[in-house]
């Protein structure tokens, strides 16, 4: 069923809210009142129309609740409704960020508790809670490194980033005034230690390393890397996007890391929400802790306080403020609820099950698919498109055919270091049965591809609300909003 845009459904004079008439008062808009007759262009819909419209739109979406969603590097695990419920508690949802501290002691305690869990789980002594997302967490970590270097009076500007890194890593480094120097990977999908060592020098600010990395592998030389970068006078930034593979089992502090962001929506189940909001707290080593941004919560004898201004008396030299107010409180609530629900034992079980599920999937699929790198994987399994060679079917084609089988496809063409990559992350909240169903479906599609039916794949998917969309046309002549003329 087609669902028109709201702009095509509206009627003037119709509304989905009932508001009382304002009392007549003398306007104090300073002569800037919007003219009565200047239409803003918003459509008028009744409440029933709005409910139906968005219900129908939702039915054109696939979420974790809809089925298996093995989108590699995105960690599409179950989003508990308990977390949604507690985030809406009065006393949480209705708090204003600028209330007096005396009226928000519970909120500050909650942030403090969430921070405590993150510090214990990472073994790190400090955490900055305010970053709005993983990308801003990276910014936070790299700015702390920059601030620490500045404090040392050193002009190091080169940051080493593996080729396989997520695009945010180089983008973030650039935003902090660093230049990016790529480190190649070895045959087995890890950092080339020799190449890395060769690149070290006194202009190196540090390394940005994802661990487990974007190939789904644990960087087995991570400690050596840490030692080397430290010895060279640089810092070790770890992209914690894949912390979910090791939470409760490996503490980043034990690996020599100086800063790491944690995607609460990946590791701690806050909802992905169609692309946000995220939350990216950053844990810091002793070396970087003093440079963490404002604001932060401290506990004193008379309660909790939110430090909102750079006060160097406590020895801290915050590099600044990253966000209005003090971070994604709603995500802290959900993440804390998730952490308390699992506990230390459950988090450990969760990471173990995530890795077990991924390796099981790897074991089943490698019978037909070409594995990118040998050995066990961590939380996700990476394949290249060697197995499709000669079939006329591309990674994209296969992925689209998977949609018709009732699954969300894997991540495609990432990481870039692998040709035609397929990155598959089942997560720990999937059953063996659902992984088996997925593997069965993929294996039978591969058989179909091998049988030479590439036409079928080129035109997939067939059963979706839309068939393949013309992305080129969209970019060539962008239509980015509705207007009466393009209706």
């Amino acid at each position: 069923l087609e669902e028109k845009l709201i702009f095509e459904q509206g009627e003037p004079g119709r509304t989905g809210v009932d508001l009382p008439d304002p009392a007549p008062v003398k306007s104090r808009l300073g002569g800037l009142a919007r003219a009565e007759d200047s239409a803003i262009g918003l459509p008028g819909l009744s409440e029933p129309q709005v409910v139906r419209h968005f219900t129908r739109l939702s039915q054109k979406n696939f979420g974790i609740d809809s089925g298996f969603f093995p989108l590699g590097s995105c960690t599409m695990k179950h989003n508990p409704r308990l977390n949604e419920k507690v985030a809406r508690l009065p006393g949480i949802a209705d708090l204003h960020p600028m209330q007096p501290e005396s009226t928000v002691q519970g909120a500050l305690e909650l942030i403090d508790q969430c921070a405590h869990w993150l510090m214990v789980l990472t073994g790190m002594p400090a955490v900055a809670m305010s970053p709005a997302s993983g990308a801003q967490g990276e910014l936070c970590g790299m700015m702390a490194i920059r601030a620490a270097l500045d404090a040392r009076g050193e002009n190091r500007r080169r940051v080493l980033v593996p080729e396989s890194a997520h695009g945010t890593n180089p983008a973030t480094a650039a935003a902090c005034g660093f230049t990016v120097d790529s480190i190649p990977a070895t045959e087995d999908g890890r950092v080339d230690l020799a190449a890395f060592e060769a690149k070290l020098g006194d202009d190196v600010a540090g390394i940005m390393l994802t661990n487990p990395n974007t190939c789904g592998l644990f960087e087995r030389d991570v400690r050596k890397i840490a030692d080397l970068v430290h010895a060279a006078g640089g810092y070790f930034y770890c992209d914690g996007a894949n912390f979910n593979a090791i939470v409760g089992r490996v503490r980043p502090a034990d690996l020599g890391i100086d800063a790491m962001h944690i995607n609460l929506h990946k590791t701690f189940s806050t909802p992905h929400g169609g692309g946000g909001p995220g939350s990216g707290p950053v844990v810091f080593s002793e070396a970087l802790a003093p440079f963490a941004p404002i604001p932060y919560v401290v506990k004193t004898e008379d309660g909790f306080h939110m430090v909102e201004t750079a006060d160097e008396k406590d020895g801290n030299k915050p590099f600044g403020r990253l966000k209005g107010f003090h971070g994604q409180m709603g995500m802290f609530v959900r993440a804390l609820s998730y952490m308390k629900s699992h506990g230390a034992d459950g988090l450990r079980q969760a990471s173990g099950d995530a890795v077990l599920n991924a390796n099981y999937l790897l074991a089943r699929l490698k019978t037909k698919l070409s594995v990118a790198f040998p050995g066990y994987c961590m939380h996700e399994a990476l394949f290249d498109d060697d197995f499709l060679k000669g079939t006329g079917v591309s990674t994209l084609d296969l992925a689209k055919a998977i949609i018709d089988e009732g699954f969300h496809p894997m991540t495609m063409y990432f990481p870039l270091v692998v040709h035609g990559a397929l990155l598959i992350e089942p997560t720990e909240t999937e059953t063996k049965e659902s992984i088996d169903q997925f593997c069965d479906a993929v294996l039978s599609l591969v058989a179909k591809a091998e049988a030479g039916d590439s036409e079928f794949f080129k035109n997939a998917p067939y059963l979706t609300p839309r068939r393949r969309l013309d992305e080129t046309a969209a970019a060539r002549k962008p239509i980015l909003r509705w207007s009466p003329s393009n209706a």
Partner: protein
Amino acid sequence: MRYLPLTQADRASMLETIGAGSVDDLYCDVPEGALLKEPVDLPHHQGEMQVERDMAKLAAKNMGTASAPSFLGAGAYRHHIPATVDYIIQRGEFLTAYTPYQPEIAQGTLQYLFEFQTQVASITDMDVANASMWDGATSCAEAVLMACRATRRKKAVLSGGLHPHYREVTETYCQYSDTQVAGRDGHPEHQATADELDDLIDDQTACVVVQYPDVFGRLSDHTKLAEACHAKGALLIVVFTEAVAFGAIKSPGSFGADIVCGEGQSIGNALGYGGPYVGLFATTSKLVRQMPGRLCGETVDQDGKRGFVLTLSTREQHIRREKATSNICTNSGLCSLAFTVHMSLLGEDGYRKLAAINHERAVTTADALDGVAGVEVVNDSFFNEFTVKLAKPAAEVVEALVARGILAGVPLSRLYPNRDDLGQYMLVAATETNTDEDIAALAAALKEVLA
């Protein structure tokens, strides 16, 4: 554990298929000694009832705005959110979806983003808007960086009327990218004039940033400022913190702004102690390829049917890496959905009426406070927030009102901890949620405390 479906039998059979002896074996690449053998020192798992009880206890230690007359603003505003909004954003197909990388099964997200972009462009009166940013402050910082890219200049002029958090975030973002940030301190009693910033604009200036209404609640026409900017090749960035305002006041687009950005929390999103919120970001067609953040565009599918996709992604980090327009990746998807649903309910009539009520409530509040000895309303103009000067330090007054069960307003000392000259000023916001009783209670309590 209720979220984990594997049984011991599953685990055993899967390990057998893998050919591993134990889960620990799968972690064989972890360096010696770093693999923990026991759970870390934190409490063990708890049932739903216990977790809910613990969280409720923390919540109960706070005094929420729903349980007290509240006049807090300064960049976050309490508005009534229709129950429909919360219902829609909790639907699993929206809540548990990810970035619409597979448009064939993400038309729901994509279509509402297209609607969101259109709504934002409409209320700001700009050509195009993106699919949202993290919040108003980061939108402001990104707008400045965008202006620098677009003009290939490295100087930003910030108005004294800009929210201090927005200023600080912008300074933080600029500090390591050789961008100079200039501007003047603001003061609620020094009325911004149309030409206050003119002398700071030169041919190195990438942009001028003004807030409208400004942080003290004042309204100014920035048409002349836009002309002054454009005369020097600079861009005018208009920032806002209260998205309801544009239902009652002239649009930033009508001033000739090049970028309009700000906070969208007021529409559909709970206060939530400061986040997550949703940054709105609009600009002109000319500048669209310099815009940060995701963009949703219209196209057609294989069968020729209208559909939507993420587009112009060559601006973004996952393609351009260190040359991207921004490092932003996730946006505020679900918050932008809340915005879209609420805005759809409001419609043209509802949005304008909501704004009118907000203004009326603020005028009524200002009139009530003007009658209190020791309170002086300093604004000539305002929308739903204004500044008062108190006979005593505002922070103390606010605390005294807490004891009386009232969340009075935001003392300027909270926003400007280093500005001794602002200690007696307080921001007071009023919205459709403030009743006549609330206003009377505030006036009466202030009278007591200031007596």
